[in-house]
């Protein structure tokens, strides 16, 4: 395990979801699922986050917010799209104000399906994301070393 994956901190943003997935994300913090077991802290601050958990399909207003938050996170960072809405837009994809999945705005590393995504699924997704995080960190390090 790399350094990052031992202490991944989350940033959760609701990009126009129905709350279903959000409360399940929050539920992961609570005693039954307690993702702090993995060293995960739910921080509200993009500057300190490693994993961006997004729920809901993106609409015209949240698009900017999502991009902004993503840009304020330091590398290495991964994006996890939680819920069908975040994956594809789900039942709302035909709405006039929905862009579709999160991947229409920023690159997504892990998709967690489910409506609402179950806490177990979210945990699985985060665990998957950790692997991606480690990979990214490895990539981040190598070019630097080559330069020297």
């Amino acid at each position: 395990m790399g350094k990052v994956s031992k202490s991944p901190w989350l940033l959760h943003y609701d990009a126009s979801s129905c709350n279903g997935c959000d409360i399940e994300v929050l539920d992961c913090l609570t005693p039954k699922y307690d993702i702090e077991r993995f060293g995960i802290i739910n921080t509200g601050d993009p500057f300190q986050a490693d994993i961006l958990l997004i729920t809901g399909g993106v609409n015209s207003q949240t698009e900017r917010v999502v991009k902004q938050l993503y840009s304020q996170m330091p590398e290495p960072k991964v994006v996890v799209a939680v819920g069908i809405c975040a994956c594809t837009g789900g039942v709302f994809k035909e709405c006039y104000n929905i862009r579709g999945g999160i991947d229409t705005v920023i690159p997504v590393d892990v998709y967690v399906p489910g409506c609402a995504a179950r806490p177990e699924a979210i945990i699985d997704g985060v665990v998957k994301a950790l692997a991606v995080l480690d990979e990214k960190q490895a990539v981040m390090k190598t070019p630097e070393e080559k330069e020297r």
Partner: protein
Amino acid sequence: MDKIRAFTLAGRMLKNLFRRPATTQYPFEPADYPERMRGHVRIEIGDCISCGLCMRSCPSGAIVVDRKAGTWTIDRFDCVQCGSCVTACPKKCLFMEKGYTEPDGVKKSETFVKPQEEPAGKTKKTG
């Protein structure tokens, strides 16, 4: 009104300290789900008549039925597990079952081909 108290929760906190945590062991131990869990849709492809009712009833358009090719495709990352298709299917060949679709780095869909040409096949396609 009631008396105001301080440290109201202290007793509970101290007791909790010596209780077993309510935390499940997931993912190190598998979770068990109730019978009715709407986890994912399974198709008994052999019984399917490609009528397309499920496709039309699906609120998120996750199912594509191709009558000519005899295929039944579900986009797992589009299915909201509502069970509408299960109710709609006249042949009752769709089932809502336990267990959810694994999270993944790419969005997958699954295609089932009717077993006339070849035996019940499951081909995975990514999309």
